[in-house]
């Protein structure tokens, strides 16, 4: 597992290592691993850590942790043999986006959006989508799930 990119880009002097990042900072982290259930714990920990550092409230941190856990589990389930799982996190002070994709056999459908697992994802995150990525030359097909979580906790349901 490698941190491909860890980029603090801030115009007002950079993020403080301690405390919430400045308002206009974006932190982007990418993880690339084997599509294996063993690494899901590591990936969800990264998600929770980013949310905590973006000063999300504890409910939102936990929601994101569970959402990432679920979406990785969904992708691992449909992954082809020896597939690579890519997870790209983009953390802004008020919103964290996670785009994860995995290599699949040709013709594999994105997870059904009317399943219980999808329902869970929709409750945990603010935006959820799944798509089959356009296949690149000499590459295997990929399916991508994107979730986004906003810092504000939803109030009354």
């Amino acid at each position, binding site marked *: 597992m490698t941190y491909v990119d860890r980029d603090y880009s801030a115009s007002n002097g950079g993020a403080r290592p*301690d405390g919430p990042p400045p308002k206009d900072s974006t932190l982007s982290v990418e993880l690339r691993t084997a599509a294996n259930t063993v690494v899901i714990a590591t990936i969800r920990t990264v998600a929770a850590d980013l949310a905590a550092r973006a000063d999300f409230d*504890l*409910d939102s941190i936990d929601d994101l942790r*569970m959402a990432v856990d*679920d979406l990785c589990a969904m992708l691992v389930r449909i992954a082809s043999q020896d597939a690579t799982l890519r997870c790209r996190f983009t953390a802004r002070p008020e919103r964290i986006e996670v785009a994860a994709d995995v290599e699949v056999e040709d013709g594999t459908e994105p997870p059904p959006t*009317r399943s219980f697992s999808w*329902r869970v994802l929709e409750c945990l995150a603010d935006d959820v989508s799944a798509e089959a990525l356009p296949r690149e030359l000499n590459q295997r097909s990929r399916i991508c799930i994107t979730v986004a979580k906003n810092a504000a906790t939803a109030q009354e*349901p």
Partner: protein
Amino acid sequence: MTPSVSSVGTEHGEYAHLLPLQRRYAELSPDDPERPRLREQLINGYLPVAEHIARRFAGRGEPVDDLMQVATVGLINAVDRFEPDRGSDFFSFAVPTITGEVRRYFRDHGWATRVPRRLKDLHIAIRSTLSELSQQLGRAPRPSEIAERLRLPVSEVIEGLQAGEAYRSSSLDEMLGSGEGKATLGEFIGGLDSELGLIDDREALRPLLAQLPPRERTIIALRFFRQLTQTQIAEQVGISQMHVSRVLRQTLAYLHEQMAGLD
């Protein structure tokens, strides 16, 4: 509660015969062949003290035999580290040493993996602020808000929160034991069914949900069909937000596992 020294006897009482051995033991060089025998005599001689302290901590959810072992470890440490020259008597050294060992055992025992003491203490401090802050804010607090309350850097609070992930998850019995009955299952069944109609795998899901203990089913329903936040659920069911979080995670993992098995 620290058992008082007088309650376990003094050097002038039933343990007086051990005092010369103690002095001798302290005088011997570390590699003296006589040491192991003396050490054993001392430990056995003072064993009732360890037992007495272990019993003081009985009835707090840990088996007395385990407590006895831990207290004995404390006693061995006390025997090994006691320096008669320092002027204090053995009991005023041994009792806090043994008590400390048992206390540490209680503190460490709730943790599934080894986490440094500092982080555990930090996590306990964080937990203690949560319910108060949640109530004041009307939502779960942010790390920065906890940091402000505890007068700690945010980075430390984040570390403490992560340490909490290693906290041993409650057993099913514990979950069912506390605060039962504050939310009645019947309230949720109707909403659950109508929402379930939209879900394709409801045929697989319905019997699984029906098998869940009432507490778990209620929490799943409130979170995923009523869309309450964890803090709101905690309030309604009468348990902590962290507890809700654990129940959700374990129950979801269980449901996913079961549904995957049906494919």
